[in-house]
């Protein structure tokens, strides 16, 4: 398998600013350790509740982002600021590049062989793609929830939530792990439903519960940003509503980006909506319009947006 290629043009213009290099250092190393220290303190002071630590969420700034799969230009010149403590919905028909763009926000795009990123993507001003930044670290700070709930099939509910912790923190005390698992499950509104069967397999849960388990797993490692790729498309309306409620609660702590094909979901659950489309088939996807969700659904600026949200596809 060919190794990933990350373009050297990434963030080149940003480098001129004094803080960037310094910033990428912190993305590269410090956050990890300080988080664990933070965790330990939380544990020892007995703060095991879901008390939101507001103000931690970070801003993602995408500038002139172009995404490629080999020769195929998938996304063209997207510049978008993703605001902290807000839910940003990415909408647009299949193939318009919104999922590809989402995957570039935590360096998952480059996992596809031949995939390439050009432009700059920063997390609170720190270049995600700078040399020396470990993509694994980026993915720890920017978590992802997928379309199909994907709990680890052989693991218990408890171990599913604790899995990220095991990978990221090495050895930690059982009591501390218990606290993180409980806090995360409470945070994803699943605790009451599973607290008496934490040792049962995660796959034994319903679809909606599995998705909330995956969200618990994602937030257990205290990310700054949560990316969700059609998190409700495999769920029934009741489970969908539970996830949407959860998204509303989580935004007090995280920056959230959600890709959805369900326009009403974007209207209900997001604060900002970004509409992507293709000029014509074969051309790369581009960002047509971004704005307050209310504006996009009552009075969008672009005709293409209007036609799409109104269901006039032509």
């Amino acid at each position, binding site marked *: 398998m060919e190794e990933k290629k990350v373009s050297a043009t990434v963030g080149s213009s940003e480098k001129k600013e004094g803080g960037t290099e310094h910033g990428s250092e912190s993305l590269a190393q410090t956050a990890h350790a300080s988080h664990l220290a933070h965790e330990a303190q939380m544990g020892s002071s007995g703060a095991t509740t879901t008390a939101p630590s507001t103000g931690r969420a970070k801003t993602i700034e995408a500038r002139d982002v172009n995404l490629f799969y080999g020769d195929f230009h998938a996304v063209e010149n997207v510049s978008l600021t993703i605001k902290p403590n807000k839910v940003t919905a990415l909408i647009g028909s299949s193939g318009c590049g919104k999922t590809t763009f989402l995957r570039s926000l935590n360096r998952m795009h480059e996992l596809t062989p031949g995939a390439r990123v050009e432009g700059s993507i920063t997390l609170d001003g720190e270049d995600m793609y700078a040399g020396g930044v470990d993509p694994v670290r980026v993915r720890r700070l920017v978590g992802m929830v997928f379309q199909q709930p994907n709990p680890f099939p052989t693991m218990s509910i408890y171990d599913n939530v604790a899995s990220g912790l095991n990978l990221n923190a090495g050895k930690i005390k059982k009591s501390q792990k218990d606290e993180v698992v409980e806090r995360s499950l409470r945070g994803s509104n699943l605790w009451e439903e599973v607290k008496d069967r934490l040792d049962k397999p995660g796959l034994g849960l319903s679809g909606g519960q599995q998705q909330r388990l995956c969200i618990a797993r994602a937030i257990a490692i205290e990310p700054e940003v949560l990316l969700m790729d059609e998190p409700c498309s495999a769920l029934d309306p009741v489970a969908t509503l539970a996830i949407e409620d959860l998204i509303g609660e989580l935004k007090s702590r995280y920056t959230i980006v959600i890709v959805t094909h369900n*326009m*009403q979901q974007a*209207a209900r659950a997001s604060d900002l909506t970004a509409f992507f489309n293709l000029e014509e088939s074969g051309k790369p996807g581009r960002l047509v319009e971004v704005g307050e969700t209310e504006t996009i*659904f*009552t*009075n*969008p600026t672009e005709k293409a*947006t*209007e036609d799409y*949200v*109104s*269901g*006039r*596809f*032509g």
Partner: protein
Amino acid sequence: MPETSARAEYVEELDRLEQSALDGLDLVNAALTRTLEAIEHQDIELAQLVVADDDRIDGRYLEVHQSLITLLATQSPVATDLRLIASLLHVLKNIERMGDQCVNICKVIPLSGNEPPADEEMVKRILTMGRQTRTLISQAKRSFLERDVEQARDLVRQDDVVDNLNRECFYLALAIGDDADRREWAMTMLLTARAIERIADNAVDIGEQVAFVVTGLFREFEDASHPA
């Protein structure tokens, strides 16, 4: 990719409902024309016909209103479609009120009986108000169908004519003298003038809805409580 047929039906249905709602303004114009004729000739039978015929306007209101609610429930309209539906619900109410004002006038016409009018000048002004209001109603309909904000805004200017005539009627009524019958006649005619003036105001309200459909902003063209 062609529009899916179900969605195309929805678009057609919305067009049809807009036309049907706005055609309600033609019903109002017909009612107003008869009302003016009944005033001019003190024709009580014609007045009664207007009262009976108002059921058609009310029926149109209920029918289109229900269909719009169905579209809201089943099609989740957004953006321009949503604004159009919201404004049509509003306009339907305007139309229904305009019809009711014609009925109000027609119910007081018998009061004036077969006596000749006490003041020809007042009748003349009321008939002029009525004709001007018919123009406003037609212009409101046209500006809506054509999504023409300038034409809608012009309704305010047209409405000023009606307002001024209404004021003149007031002073004519004051000057009618002490005779009890003549005063009663003048009072009735003042109510009539007032009702026509309200119909014209409703036409201006429809113009404001035109601006809302086009721009997404709702602003009263003129605010009676905060005159410019």
